């Protein structure tokens, strides 16, 4: 079996893995080396160690990239699980369809989107990815193929949604797509001066806009704490001449990893201030191609390299209910004091549409996501402070983004984890899972 150095998107861990591969949905579950655990692996866009299996094998699924059927009348698409959202977009957008839920990158596989039950800027309307999965096939290491849907094998469906690849390998899925009038987005960007304004703006926007998300200046404190820009958008019907002028964005690339992180105190302060003031007025309307609206970072290939050889951590939490507002203020204050901010602090209010996923991350509340250059112990010290705020608020962290959360925070944040355990395939494991369940 070949071995290869594999790292996740955060570039913190680089480790040798034995590689196994599926060629199509018809293949059997590979034997691998007896006694060695196996983790299904999609496109490796998880940030931390949930897509890694140190000391074990990865089961590559990218070659499961066939469409099975697509009905342009109903928007029902069946495809193998290794296909990228980017491939689906290329096929369906010209026919007036769109994935009802998309994360911030289109370079994720369908299997990965299910296994992490990803969400997007329209969570308040559409819920999570699994809410639009009509059915999926789960291949277990004993050769069993389970057809799972909300009606058939619903408990397996619930375990596999957000199940981090631990319940077996997803071979294919059937998705319900959503109609769009065209590939362009009508966007309004509004500057807000503090958190209170953000929440008011959000409550108002969520009624009339399909997509809402805010960027937060995580360097400012005091009266300016939580200032930022809110984007609210709907897809729009556009005349053809507009379509041509608002073409897809140009592709840039970070060709190599700089010797140190380009994200540091100086660039952070500068970026955050400039970004906040990037528009002259309080409100700005614009029309954008869906690619630059949904996937701004996809336009810069390998942007994760900007964080230097030590890599980056992303920290994404959700805190529930009304108390969540105070927790968010406390988190932002703690981050600003630490001086370890981030270019991309993203704030969004999740809606109340529930996911069946036992370990699904999104829930009603407020989510905050930040990238941090890996500064070792200094950063971990900050993380522990943030952890305790989240823990006290009854919140949780997103496994897809995590490479370090303490086991207790995971287990308290995901009370259904013990219910999930019996669904784990006896051959499957991951570095993340061993880490957060150790000693439990």
């Amino acid at each position, binding site marked *: *079996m*070949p071995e290869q150095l594999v790292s996740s998107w955060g570039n913190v861990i680089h480790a040798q893995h034995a590689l196994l*591969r599926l060629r199509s949905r*018809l293949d059997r579950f590979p034997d691998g080396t007896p006694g060695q655990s196996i983790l299904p692996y999609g496109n490796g866009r998880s940030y931390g160690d949930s897509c890694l299996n140190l000391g074990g094998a990865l089961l590559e699924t990218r*070659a499961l990239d*066939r*469409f*099975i059927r*697509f009905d342009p009348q109903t928007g029902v698409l069946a495809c193998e699980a290794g296909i990228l959202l980017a491939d689906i977009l290329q096929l369906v957008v010209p026919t007036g369809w769109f994935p009802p839920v998309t994360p911030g990158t289109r370079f994720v596989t369908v299997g990965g989107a299910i296994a992490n039950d990803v969400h997007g800027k329209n969570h308040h309307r559409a819920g999570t990815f699994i809410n639009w999965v009509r059915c999926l096939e789960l291949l277990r290491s004993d050769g069993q193929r389970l057809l799972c849907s909300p009606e058939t094998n619903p408990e397996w469906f619930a375990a596999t949604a957000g199940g981090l690849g631990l319940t077996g390998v997803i071979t294919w899925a059937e998705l319900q797509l959503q109609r769009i009038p065209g590939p362009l987005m009508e966007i309004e960007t509004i500057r807000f001066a503090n958190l209170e304004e953000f929440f008011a703006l959000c409550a108002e926007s969520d009624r009339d806009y399909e997509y809402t998300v805010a960027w937060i200046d995580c360097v400012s404190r005091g009266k300016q704490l939580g200032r930022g820009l809110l984007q609210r958008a709907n897809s729009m019907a556009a005349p053809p001449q507009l379509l041509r002028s608002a073409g897809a964005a140009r592709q840039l690339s970070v060709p190599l990893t700089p010797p140190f992180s380009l994200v540091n105190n100086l660039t952070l302060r500068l970026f955050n201030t400039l970004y906040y003031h990037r528009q002259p007025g309080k409100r700005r309307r614009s029309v954008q191609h869906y690619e630059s609206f949904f996937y701004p970072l996809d336009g810069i290939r390998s942007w994760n390299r900007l964080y230097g050889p030590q890599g980056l951590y992303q920290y994404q939490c959700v805190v529930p209910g009304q108390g969540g507002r105070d927790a968010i203020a406390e988190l932002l204050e703690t981050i600003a004091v630490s001086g370890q901010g981030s270019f991309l602090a993203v704030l969004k209010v999740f809606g109340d549409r529930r996911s069946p996923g036992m370990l699904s991350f999104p829930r009603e509340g407020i989510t905050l996501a930040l990238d941090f250059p890996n500064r070792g112990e200094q950063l971990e010290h900050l993380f522990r402070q943030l952890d305790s705020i989240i823990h006290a608020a009854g919140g949780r962290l997103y496994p897809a983004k995590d490479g370090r959360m303490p086991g207790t925070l995971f287990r308290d944040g995901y009370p259904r984890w013990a219910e999930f355990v019996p669904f784990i395939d006896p051959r499957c494991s991951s570095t993340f899972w061993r880490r957060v369940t150790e000693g439990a």
Partner: protein
Amino acid sequence: MRKVLVVGATSAIAEATARLLAQRGDTLFLTARRADALAAIAADLQVRGAAKVGTAMLDANDLGSHERVLDEAEGLMGGLDTVLVAHGTLSNQKECERSAVLTAREIGNNGVSVVTLLTIIANRFEQQRAGTIVVISSVAGDRGRQSNYVYGSAKALVTAFLSGLRQRLHKSGVAVITIQPGFVDTPMTAGFRKGFLWAKPQQVALGIVRAIDRPASVVYLPGFWRLIMLIIRSIPEGIFRRLSL
């Protein structure tokens, strides 16, 4: 719009090429040994935009079945103007050295079955005075090396055959294209460690479609292999026999 027969359609390079052809609306007829894998690929190509996709099970070593499958392809597509021959197996050199039977079988898979099929196609295309024949040979066929000379000699047969066929069919307006891929990261090579010389099937497929459209004669994919093989071919035998390539 082309009417394309793909022999060995489950090979990763063939499938990637077929996708590009499907996306531009070509009609395709696929053959391979496994019916379920064929059906999965056919469905995918249909979704991607192929005008029509037909399939037939074919073991290329069953030399007597070639005529029948060609008839089927022509019948379903209402003609045939392009053939991509992509079937093959990566021989295990060490096992071949121990077994004359296995050696003969590998030469059959990768060499004899190809030239048999080409003989029939060539006559049909010569008669219709049009067509494009694309065959995936290999850089391994450019010079026998101890690490894989059984596979290499089968491919050398194919390469030499194509060279002659190209001359013969030139006057009939039939293009004969030899594709010389280097190391390609496919299921056939899953057991190898991958270094910088390895290409993705999608990359090779783009090169094949470009070669069909031009049409080219001998195409190394990626292109730098032309230089590598030029050097390898020009090493004097006295030195070459001592190398551990």
